[in-house]
């Protein structure tokens, strides 16, 4: 299993770098395990509650990919400040070696 780094940018501009983490599970699980602010994940990753909302910057959208149908419905219904094209639920982003160096901004919950 490869080892990667990902960064969560908090709403105050501060950064949480998760360096040298295994590329397994989801971005939400990685963020929740170290208590990143705003990654609440109330539903535990069921794609149902919208409390792990992040914005993916343009340079990463292709590699991260678009939300699936159910995720789009949940974003539309549950989150504040849904931005099509940028918004993703981090519980639906599976970590992989492709995502080494990923930076996302945590949305306001």
């Amino acid at each position, binding site marked *: 299993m490869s080892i990667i780094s990902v960064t969560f940018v908090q709403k105050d501009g501060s950064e949480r770098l998760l360096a040298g983490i295994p590329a397994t599970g989801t971005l939400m699980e990685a963020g929740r395990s170290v208590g990143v602010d705003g990654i*609440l994940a*109330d*539903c*535990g*990753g*069921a*794609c*149902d*509650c*919208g*409390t792990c909302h992040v914005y993916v910057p343009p340079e990463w959208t292709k590699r991260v990919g678009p939300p699936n149908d*159910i995720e789009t*419905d*949940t974003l*539309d*219904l*549950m*989150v*504040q400040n849904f931005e099509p094209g940028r918004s993703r639920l981090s519980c639906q982003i599976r970590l992989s070696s492709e995502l080494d160096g990923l930076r996302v901004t945590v949305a306001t919950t």
Partner: protein
Amino acid sequence: MIQNNSTEASADGIDLSTASLADPEILAHPNAFYAAMRKDDAVHYDKNLDMYLISRYEDLQTVLRDPITFSVKKGFAEQYAKGFLKEYKEILERDGGGFFVNAIMTDPPEHTRVRRLLDSAFTAHRVKTLQPEITNIAVDLVEKLLAKGEGEVFSEFAMPMTSRIICKQLGVDLPSATVQRWALALTQQISRMQSREDMLRAAKDVCDLQNFLLAEIKDRQNSPPREDMISDLVHARLDDADQPTLGLDELVTLGVALLVAGNETTATALTTMFYIFATRPDIAATLRASLDDDRVVTRFVEELLRFDPPVRGITRMTTKDVEVGGVALPKGAHLLLLYASANDDDSEFDSPREFDMNRPNIGRHVSFGAGIHRCVGAALARMELKVAVREVLSRMDNIQLAIPNDEITYLPTVATHTIARLPLTFTRRG
């Protein structure tokens, strides 16, 4: 009551120094009482219940997001079979296989291991695969009602629908009436409104329920894994080196919770759905025109949940001296979080008594709770409601109350806000 009035006006005429949520009239139609609290006494001590009622959206969020300061475990224990616990416990130990320690109404870290396991069972993606099966059940029940042209929808539609779905998931075969009786017996233990006679009747039902589940669990412990949730629980391996499998307390109380929580709450919402269709033909017409538009149906369901949440509230107990909403609470204070009141708070929702499917923040209601105890079956509940909306409105027309609006009664309980009987008439849609 579901009506299209304003919140401000409804605060009139409530004297908080004497009014209590234990009053059956207030339990049935609580919105004016809630509004009075939000305005004048947001963290209100209810003498009759010996509880602090938390009424504002912001204060509910504060409490829901801090499971260490506000303990579910202690709040639940304080509430459970209140006044009769000793006798209730003795009956269950004698006739019901034991008094099992609840595995859900707990605090971290013990809550976490069980919660992680259940999260994976109810993902929105897994629930989506159940849609055809749920649709078949809804169609069958709607057609049975249509054949008669009238019916009491809580017992003839809502409970059969939810109980058939959860029984199928659990891999058990039970008549809907039995599930309904057991569910009510369980919910009664957190109702705060039961007499000793009520408790004795309920305890017998809970014994039957436990004995049934114990047999189902034993059956699966002695056989290879099957495709059902009880089997999944029995054979589950947890991410916990010290306790890699679920203990008997956990198996029984999870089984009970799935059977009950997956039933009465959603059945309550389904009944309220019918009530809205019968009393707000404008909303039914809007929906009928958009049944193929998933977004519209989804938003109706969400607004239904906000407008009249099935769960009235869940309890917490403070584990230290703490301030909530500017009120100093002592350690050991028993709180009731009023979901319907938070959903009616105009600091969060504009014109909250308007049924508005286009709210920008429609999903921010607290009807499923929030934080680590947020309803694990939320996606399933939404799916059941969406399917019901489609099948009912595409097949039924002229849905009307068969009794006067003011004769509709609600179950006497602080746990849910449930229409006890909803007789309706309807015709087949041409």
